[in-house]
């Protein structure tokens, strides 16, 4: 970092009359570039290039193989005006409740509780159990959950055992419940990540603050509100950012569990883009939807970043 920050004085804002950087500085600049290259090349090939190409495709009517026809912003007009294209976007925002709100709230509580536990096998086990969903591939997790939710699945067996057999149903095929069922899989996945990040954050909080709070006679709740919560501002910011992106760009869980059904109850933009591009072969419309989704994610995430950093 020093290599680069040394040079801020020589940045583009420098006095035009000042001499050009000497040969040593220039060599250092190239040396710096050399270090960046291994990361930059894949980033360009696999992130920037697809991004630019998608933006280009989004202006064409193209099936992915044959001749493309330039249509300008027509695809965007279709994305933004047809209700069929907007419903999935709405679903993505509703998913934030399950992917972000629930896991962050539960994660805070869990982290605070775990923090109170003495370090030992119990705390370790609890952490491992909570973090496991992060390690399992999403597809495998979603498959397992679709068994849990199936008509003979564990959830329904449990309901029948406790005498609530009338509540049992094929959750993922139920118009009323499918969305909640899918969303809760997301909560399950995100909870581990949030808890782990938040525990790490709590451990970084100066213990004397807790001592001071206790001396002032604060109970566990007051301690949580006055010390833990403000101390975790940045970790919460990270949790919210990561999980909001996961919610808005969700694909795997929905693809495996419901494919957007029943009806279009659980259709999300990620799945829709996939279907448009690979089933319907409307590469242009799919790219336009993807670009719109990207802009939405940025619009949501950028202010979040500001808020979480605001305190500093």
């Amino acid at each position, binding site marked *: 970092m020093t290599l680069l920050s040394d040079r801020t004085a020589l940045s583009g804002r420098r006095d035009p009359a000042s001499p050009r950087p000497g040969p040593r500085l220039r060599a250092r600049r190239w040396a710096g570039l050399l270090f960046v290259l291994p990361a930059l090349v894949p980033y360009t090939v696999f992130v920037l290039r697809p991004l630019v190409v998608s933006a280009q495709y989004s202006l*064409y009517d193209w099936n992915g193989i044959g001749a493309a026809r330039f249509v300008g912003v027509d695809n965007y007009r279709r994305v933004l005006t047809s209700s069929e294209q907007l419903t999935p976007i709405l679903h993505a925002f509703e998913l934030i409740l399950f992917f972000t709100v629930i896991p962050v709230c539960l994660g805070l509580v869990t982290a605070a509780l775990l923090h109170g536990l003495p370090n030992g096998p119990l705390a370790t086990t609890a952490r491992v159990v909570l973090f496991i969903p992060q390690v399992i591939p999403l597809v495998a997790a979603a498959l397992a959950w679709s068994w849990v939710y199936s008509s003979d699945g564990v959830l329904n067996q449990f309901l029948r055992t406790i005498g609530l057999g009338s509540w049992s*149903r094929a959750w*993922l095929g139920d118009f009323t419940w499918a969305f909640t069922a899918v969303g809760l899989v997301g909560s399950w996945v995100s909870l581990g990540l949030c808890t782990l990040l938040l525990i790490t954050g709590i451990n970084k909080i100066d213990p004397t603050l807790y001592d001071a709070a206790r001396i002032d006679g604060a109970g566990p709740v007051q301690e949580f509100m006055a010390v833990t919560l403000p101390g975790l501002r940045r970790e919460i910011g990270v949790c919210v950012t990561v999980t909001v992106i996961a919610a808005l760009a969700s694909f795997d869980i929905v693809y495996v569990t419901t494919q957007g059904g029943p009806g279009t109850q659980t259709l999300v933009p990620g799945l829709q883009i996939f279907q448009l591009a690979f089933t319907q072969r409307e590469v242009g419309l799919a790219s336009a939807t993807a670009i719109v989704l990207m802009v939405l994610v940025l619009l949501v995430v950028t202010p979040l970043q500001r808020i979480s950093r605001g305190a500093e």
Partner: protein
Amino acid sequence: MSRFNSHEGRQTSGPSRRWVLSAAAGMALTAACSAPGNSSVGAGAKSAAGKAVSTTAPKGSVTLNLYVETGFPLPVKLAEEFQKQYPNVKVKIRQDQFAVITQNAPRVMASSDAPDLIRIPTIVASAKDGLLADLDGYARAYGWDKYSTGLIDQMRVSDKGVRGSGPLYALGIGYNITGIFYNKTLAAKIGMTNPPSTVAELESLLAKAKKAGIQPIVQFNDIGGVNFPFQALLNQYEDPSKIANWVFDRPGADLDTPATVKAADKIASWGAKGYFTSDANALTYTDMMSRFEKGGGLFMFNGDWESQNLAKSMGKNVGFFLAPPASAGGRLVAMSAPATYAIPAKSKNIATVAFFLNWVHTNSKARKIIVDVTGSSPGGPTDLALPAVADGSVVAQTLQATNDLAQKGVAVDFTANATAGIYANTIKPELQKLITGRETGAGFAKKLQADYEKELSQ
């Protein structure tokens, strides 16, 4: 993590970083200079049409690359037998999930190492893009054009992208029909001795089963499998040629008709009466099969590709009949389609693959393999005898049904095959709504036609 706490990072935006970023963006942009796509992709596609083609057995060592579906052993078994009879031919097989093949087919066929034969369910778009070899020359030379026209014509595509006429772009390996499998033990319980001869009789059987506490129909609908019973009804109510025109994308084809409304309303009423399972909208194809095999329902609407599997798991306890006509003595109409395999235009062994396809249709051992592995009809010349199967088995019944249909009925392709998006975007969600009372028959018909026209206009 630097993305999230990069206030140190801000200091680094000196000229070199900007340079690097703009260079990267520039590299990325160069990719976007020209319009995507390739209008000359189909240049070689029509080469086989006019010329005389070779129909002799392959000479010298040839390697054929097949791209087929996972979990479907038929092409593998056929390839084994073919290699036995023609040891100079080596067949390499690549397998993928059906959905994966469908989604990747255009790109795989357009690539420089295109396979020689590919399992592909919908051929229109690929034919229009010039990705498929025109097989007319071989059709004339081998006499494929004299096979049952109802089935062969499904694989013709005109240059306007309308199926039913134009050059031949694919052949079937196994010719499927669909109908209704029934559990004989459960049928006996409700006094069903013969298959129903009208839709009304079928309905009364459904009602009897429901009353007797037997699940009337097990049908997957997680991805829209209720389209089997829906089209089974539609075929009886609507003029089959109108359905065929619609599936083939003929201009002006319209299925927003009273017959569609009637069929959809019937499906809705079956849903309301509990003839489908309560978890139908979450039931997968695999679960449907295992449930039916275990006696979990009286009827299952499905195709003869499962005949051998059902014969193995249920023995003589399973029977098959074609969907009955609306009124007694009416003409049989059934959903029927080949399992289509096409030769990519870029294949370097078109003549050898064509020879293989002809062998599949005419060689007695190959035909027997098709019947033994799937239970579907092997197609081929109409005067060629069908391989022998055990009397009274469900395979014998489906083969008999195929024969009946060829002689006195009408075969109609799957409505789900009409356009690339119609099944996933319209039929699936609409049927899920229909059987749970969230859509009416009229609403279904209207949406079906509207989405169809929208997709074709694009």
